[in-house]
């Protein structure tokens, strides 16, 4: 067992079941290493926040976990099975959903058309629309509006709605708060907490940490491609500045 494994088990105990686990994951872009042995655990039914400064490797960690980037070493374990080399579309179809940084919506399509794109997963359009409007009532009045003209918060809601339409078991959120007003971020994290209460396991990546800590069960700080600290949100809040500034 590696040191970080020890850190995780100290922080979260021995979870009955983990839905996502990274073991000693290393990754590189064009031969330049970005991740140096990342260990990460998302226990079933919990919200884990992965925090860290810009360039720490958070987004790469999500890309590796979701199959978009092949790790150069280490294991990606989903629901107890090693899935290195799995195609991201296969993982997504089975309920492993990534809401990417920058929202990943089609700005030239209307809200309805964006939602219609999610029917590839086999769900009917009516089902996708019902799930969306129930979770995000604000989008009800915007159905015919072009997605690119929505406010930042509404675009993020649409991105999340597209993810939730597939009824994910595991949801990965990358920089939910990017470019949004604090009040909107707070509103979005209330929705995240609600999704978690419905039993979806969530891994949230954030650079600006305070808001996400309120919704998380566990948190980890990542610095220079390594997990530097793991603990409860309360424990880590006090250490955030030190970890970010490397003091």
């Amino acid at each position, binding site marked *: 067992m590696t040191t970080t494994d020890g850190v995780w088990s100290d922080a979260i105990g021995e979870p009955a079941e983990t839905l996502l686990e990274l073991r000693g994951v290393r990754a590189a872009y064009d031969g330049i290493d970005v991740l140096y042995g990342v260990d990460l655990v998302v226990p079933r039914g919990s919200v884990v926040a992965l925090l860290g400064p810009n360039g720490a490797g958070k987004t790469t960690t999500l890309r590796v976990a979701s199959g978009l980037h092949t790790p150069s070493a280490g294991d990606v374990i989903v629901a107890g099975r090693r899935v290195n080399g799995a195609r991201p579309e296969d*993982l997504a179809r*089975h*309920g492993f959903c990534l809401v990417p940084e920058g929202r990943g919506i089609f700005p030239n399509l209307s809200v309805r058309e964006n939602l219609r794109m999610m029917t590839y997963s086999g769900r009917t359009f009516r089902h996708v629309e019902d799930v969306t409007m129930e979770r995000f009532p604000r989008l009800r009045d915007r159905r015919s509006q072009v997605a690119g003209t929505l406010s930042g918060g509404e675009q993020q809601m649409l991105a999340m709605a597209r993810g939730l339409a597939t009824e994910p*078991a595991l949801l990965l959120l990358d920089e939910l708060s990017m470019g949004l007003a604090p009040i909107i971020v707070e509103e979005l994290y209330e929705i995240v907490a609600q999704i978690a209460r419905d*039993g*979806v396991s969530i891994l949230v990546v954030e650079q600006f940490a305070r808001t996400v800590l309120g919704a998380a069960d566990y948190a980890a700080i990542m610095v220079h491609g390594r997990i530097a600290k793991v603990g409860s949100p309360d424990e880590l809040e006090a250490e955030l500045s030190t970890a970010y500034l490397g003091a």
Partner: protein
Amino acid sequence: MIESQDRVEQFRAEIAEMKLRDPATSRERLWLGIGVALMVIGAGLGLASYLISHQSTSPLVQNDAVTLGLAGIVCAVIGAALFLRYSLASFLRFWLARLIYEQKAQTDRLLEK
């Protein structure tokens, strides 16, 4: 925390049944493909060099054609080497697996007797 038990169980079952490619296998296939492509290119270059040299009496053009023909031979040799290396690897792997299986079956038969 309330959990949607069924959804997670379904997710677990689907992930367990998922067919996974081994990244190493896809790399081997890529090299095998490159080998075949190089052999085809080598043959193409040989044909092209023959046509070029045949259509001209100029020694300069014919020298170019000879160079092209030699490049074609190099391509074909490298391609053949790659093809042999990676097709033999997969054949030997299969052969080894078969040998192990047959030995195990033979041992089982002996034990049954």
